[in-house]
């Protein structure tokens, strides 16, 4: 998960509590919620609550962790966090009032103006959305009558009625805290875009890619294990240094006219633009090529005006290009009234692009430049945090706001985590203790892998130009295969023209029923996954041409090929004797955005070295739950086939869970999983645990060493203070961040029949992070999750259909 808000392609996917140093390809780069300038409370209170899954309390149903959910094994380690205390008086309360107006006023702005303008409330800390008023001090009377005058001299009576007194821990109160902090960050000259705050006066430039990065923060106030904490993480907003009009003009030059409109729509629709004349952002939903700035529209008062005149009058902006089309944005209403959705027409010349187009995001050089600019070491990050806190405490306006609410910004939280023991890697005839769990490729170089099918009948497809490289690669492959225990026979080599069509034709012609594997190129993936299921391996000639890298590349490819043939590379010790682990990931199809791609991967042997993988395409969330049942039934059958029994325990790691989806998971998916388990056996059925895995989470942890902060050691577990009291949750650091800051992975056990001790659950999870065969080292999530992710990614990006079931026993998607 990146620290960068690169694009805004999805409104729903909760954004930017993001931030490592790496730009990863999943999750569409950070995503800030793009609903245009949603700054208002009523809606926020409602949404935010769902968004944080505040009303889901799963721990109380889990008897074995009700009293204690913390583990005890491992070496304690002192950690600094990006969380801060918020201090307020013991008896602090929030008073919620309801305000009515007589005569009733429809305009929320007028309602707010009248209330704020009244002297009775002028020196009080208040938050008001036009209906609900929150005060930190109680008014004398339960019902207060005030009157104010409008500009036209009309007297309006306001009745303020006390509705509730809220303790600081109530969810509503937490929302108000978030609103207060949003207000405060604005006072620090930060601007809210989506959910985060950015400082546009200190932009970082990437001129060669025409990008600006605005540094900023993702902030939130939430109730953690025992108290309310303020959390902040560094975030960046990517902006393109060009208006939409400039973008369109350049694009038109490139594409030529014939396919311009189509390409333009493809590039722009879904992107979020920032308008020049206010602070709002809009999602481009369409482009209206028939409307020009010289056309008229109807203002609210019924008069007709041209866009040109409107912008001149309203904002003193002269539109220079009178031929540009209009961008169309569907306005999301602030309230849930049933009024029809409204369309806004936006002038491309006055809109700036935020985020990146899909094409830009696929530009490796560009992404590298962004990553380099945004990468922050732990100490760099800590410095930024300190800067923010300093600002919060020094800025008089910010302090004034805090003080009127009776709040005090407190100290940075330190806590104690534990480093769980490192794992041994089990090879065929050797147990190795890697020097670093981050990468044990060197440690296992001379060891034989657990098992491998030999590669007998196979094809290499290559072009004339690459024949020489292909041959030397083949030699290498045979050599490394030999030392690994993977027998590679000579293939049939087919030379052909260098274009995708030729490759596909050749594949169709030559791949017979006895062929095991083919090598080279792309777009044949689809054919070989759907129509004619045969494992395939593609290699770019460029990769093979890298000087002196052939051996290590061949080693990697040999491992991948082994897996694709159903081989097993290594294992870790699993103390549970009959355990099936399952990984589930969900993402949207790249072509048809309303299709959900659900990838499920289950282990089918007690050693957790062999997998059953399926990918299913669905349209709705309830369908997702249904297809999980289909998958589980299949996986249990497979297990039964191989082990002649059902697994005693099943642990499901569910990734791809959006903000606010926990309830859906608990209400639909868990019951479906349970029923598939129950139906598969007439007597005692397997015990099930379901764990939600999140790579993006707010907390960060650092160790302090020699007065500077560093990333915590691999295997660090945090299960106190930064966790939530209502949940059985923990953080685990199982990835290496290089020069950046590591982000912990967050695990929330939402269902647990297995009753494992927290210690064991944590260690098992850590063990599973060692088993991803595409990388000889630890990864950030349990292997089944990563397999499921890889599978959904392949299907969502390239195949767009369910792969053939014949491949389900192989890791064909690696």
């Amino acid at each position, binding site marked *: 998960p990146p620290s960068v808000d690169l694009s805004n392609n999805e409104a729903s996917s909760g954004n930017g509590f993001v931030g490592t140093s790496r730009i990863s390809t999943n999750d569409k780069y950070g995503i800030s919620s793009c609903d245009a300038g949603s700054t208002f409370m009523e809606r926020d209170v409602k949404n935010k609550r769902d968004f944080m899954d505040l009303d889901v309390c799963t721990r109380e149903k889990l008897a074995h962790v009700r009293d204690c959910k913390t583990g005890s094994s491992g070496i304690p380690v002192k950690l600094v966090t990006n969380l801060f205390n918020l201090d307020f008086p013991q008896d602090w309360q929030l008073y919620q009032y309801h305000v009515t107006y007589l005569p009733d006023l429809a305009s929320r*702005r007028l309602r707010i103006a009248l209330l704020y303008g009244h002297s009775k409330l002028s020196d009080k800390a208040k938050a008001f959305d036009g209906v609900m008023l929150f005060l930190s001090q109680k008014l004398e009377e339960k019902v207060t009558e005030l009157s104010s005058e409008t500009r036209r001299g009309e007297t309006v009576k306001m009745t303020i009625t006390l509705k509730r007194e809220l303790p600081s821990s109530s969810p509503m109160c937490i929302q108000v805290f978030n609103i207060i902090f949003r207000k405060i960050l604005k006072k620090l000259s930060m601007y809210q875009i989506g959910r985060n705050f950015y400082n546009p006066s200190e932009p970082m430039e990437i001129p060669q890619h025409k990008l600006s990065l605005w540094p900023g923060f993702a902030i939130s106030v939430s109730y953690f294990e025992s108290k309310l904490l303020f959390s902040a993480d560094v975030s960046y907003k990517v902006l393109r240094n060009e208006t939409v009009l400039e973008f369109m003009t350049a694009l038109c030059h490139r594409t030529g*006219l*014939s396919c311009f409109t189509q390409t333009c729509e493809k590039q722009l629709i879904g992107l979020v633009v920032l308008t020049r004349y206010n602070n709002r952002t809009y999602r481009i939903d369409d482009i209206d090529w028939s409307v020009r700035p010289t056309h008229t529209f109807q203002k609210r008062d019924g008069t007709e005006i041209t*866009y040109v005149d409107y912008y001149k009058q309203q904002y003193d902006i002269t539109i220079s290009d009178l031929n540009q089309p209009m961008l169309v944005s569907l306005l999301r209403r602030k309230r849930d009234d049933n009024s029809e959705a*409204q369309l806004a027409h936006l002038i491309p010349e006055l809109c700036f692009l935020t985020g990146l187009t899909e094409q830009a995001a696929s530009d490796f050089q560009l992404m590298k430049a962004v990553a380099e600019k945004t990468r922050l070491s732990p100490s760099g990050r800590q410095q930024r945090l300190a800067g923010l806190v300093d600002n919060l405490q020094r800025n008089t306006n910010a302090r004034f706001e805090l003080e009127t609410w009776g709040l005090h910004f407190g100290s940075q939280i330190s806590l104690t985590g534990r480093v769980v023991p490192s794992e041994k890697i089990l090879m065929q005839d050797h147990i190795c203790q890697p020097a670093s769990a981050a990468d044990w490729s060197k440690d296992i170089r001379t060891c034989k892998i657990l098992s491998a099918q030999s590669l007998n009948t196979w094809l290499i497809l290559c072009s004339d130009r690459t024949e020489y490289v292909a041959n030397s690669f083949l030699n290498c492959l045979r050599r490394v295969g030999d030392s690994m225990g993977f027998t590679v026979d000579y293939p049939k080599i087919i030379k052909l023209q260098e274009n995708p069509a030729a490759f596909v034709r050749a594949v169709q012609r030559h791949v017979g029923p006895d062929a095991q594997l083919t090598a080279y190129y792309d777009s044949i993936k689809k054919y070989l996954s759907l129509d004619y299921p045969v494992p395939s391996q593609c290699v770019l000639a460029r990769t093979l041409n890298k000087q002196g890298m052939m051996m290590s590349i061949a080693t990697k490819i040999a491992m991948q090929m082994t897996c694709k043939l159903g081989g097993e590379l290594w294992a870790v010790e699993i103390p549970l004797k009959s355990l099936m682990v399952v990984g589930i990931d969900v993402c949207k199809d790249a072509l048809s955005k309303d299709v959900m791609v659900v990838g499920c991967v289950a282990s089918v042997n007690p050693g957790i070295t062999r997998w059953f993988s399926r990918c299913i395409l669905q349209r709705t969330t309830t369908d997702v739950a249904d297809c999980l049942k289909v998958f589980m039934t299949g996986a249990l059958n497979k297990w039964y086939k191989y082990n002649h029994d059902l697994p005693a325990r099943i642990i499901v790691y569910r990734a791809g869970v959006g903000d606010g989806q926990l309830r859906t998971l608990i209400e639909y998916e868990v019951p479906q999983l349970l029923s598939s388990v129950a139906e598969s056996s007439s007597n005692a059925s397997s015990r099930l645990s379901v764990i939600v895995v999140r790579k993006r989470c707010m907390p960060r942890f650092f160790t302090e060493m020699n007065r500077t902060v560093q990333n915590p050691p691999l295997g660090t577990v945090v299960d106190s203070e930064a966790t939530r009291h209502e949940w059985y949750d923990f953080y685990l650091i199982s990835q290496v961040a290089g020069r950046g800051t590591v982000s912990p992975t967050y695990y929330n056990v939402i269902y647990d029949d297995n009753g494992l001790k927290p210690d064991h659950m944590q260690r098992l999870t850590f063990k599973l992070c060692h088993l991803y065969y595409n990388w000889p080292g630890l990864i950030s999530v349990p292997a089944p999750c990563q397999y499921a992710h890889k599978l959904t990614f392949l299907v969502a990006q390239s195949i767009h259909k369910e792969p053939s079931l014949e491949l389900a026993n192989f890791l064909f998607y690696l």
Partner: protein
Amino acid sequence: MEATACTKTEALAPCSSVVDGNFEEVPRETVIQFKPPLYRQRYQFVKNLVEQHEPKKVADLGCGDTSLLRLLKVNPCIELLVGVDINEDKLRWRGDTLAPFLGDFLKPRDLNLTITLYHGSVVERDSRLLGFDLITCIELIEHLDSGDLARFPEVVFGYLSPSMIVISTPNSEFNPLFPSVTFRDSDHKFEWTRMEFQTWALYVANRYDYSVEFTGVGEPPAGAENVGYCTQIGIFRKNGGKAMESCVSEQYDQHVYKAVFTTSYPSLQQERFFKLVLVNEVSQQVESLRVSHLPRQKKQDGEWGDKPKDSKAPCPCFGPVFTEVEKAKIENSPKPFCVGDKFFVPLQRLLAYPKLNRLCANEEMMRSVIADSIPLSSDGSAVVSDLRDYFDEQF
């Protein structure tokens, strides 16, 4: 205000609801309805005056919810905009809306602009309001009691002594046309006839060496022309223009107002933003020249500006349009050229484009600003880029 489309298909021009905050007025059953509302007419009047006279420093006394300031801040000539009011809470609450927009950081103004809101009374002297080009007192004086009203000219005309002062106040002769008989606002201490206002104004103008002219907004309805404008306005100009400016420095600092809010706008006068804009415009121009230099992928597209084959979409021909003079200037400048797979655009060529010419006076200046952001040829006379880039392969 927010323009709202009545039906689904009708266009809705977006205008900010948050920042644009003139409160909608409550409709009431009066005989007289001004359109646009009277307060907007008053603001528009000031705005027109600003456009006409291009003052650099403008202060609005009794700025209230800062609506007028918000209207004025878009004017490119203003470099200092100040609001003063005695209601601190209101200033605090509305102040944020005067901060620059995000877009102002991407397309900065030409000139610096600072906006400051002070909490204080207009009858107190604060030296930070000295030397202004325009001070407006819109619907202010009628809120002053007799003591304050007596002190007002001494402070505003005598002490602050700006080049121009605009004072508006209700015209009580208009009041009989309203249903209610009393003052228009319960806080008004008086409402003057035209004669009363003009007598006062002429006296003040005479005393402090200003000339004054009278006008107003809010035309009376047909048949009642004799009552005059609903709002009467006096425009005071200091005789001898800016002669007072030299005295400003001699005044010792006197800070009685409390600064409640202050904000500075990014502008091309600031090095960082100037560089940002220039580097941007240069890369944009180079990019556009580069792309037009590439051989067209599909020959049948014909020349730039031809009708597209797809008749569904009308011709999307847009982009900058040059005058004949500008075209000639561009034509006569050194042409971009290729060496191998590198593309060169002479800085002289770039300077021929109006947008860049406006930003940058000469080649030397352009070179020094862009040198560390954009690759230049070895002699520094041209911008260099790869003839083909990542995106070219995408189409």
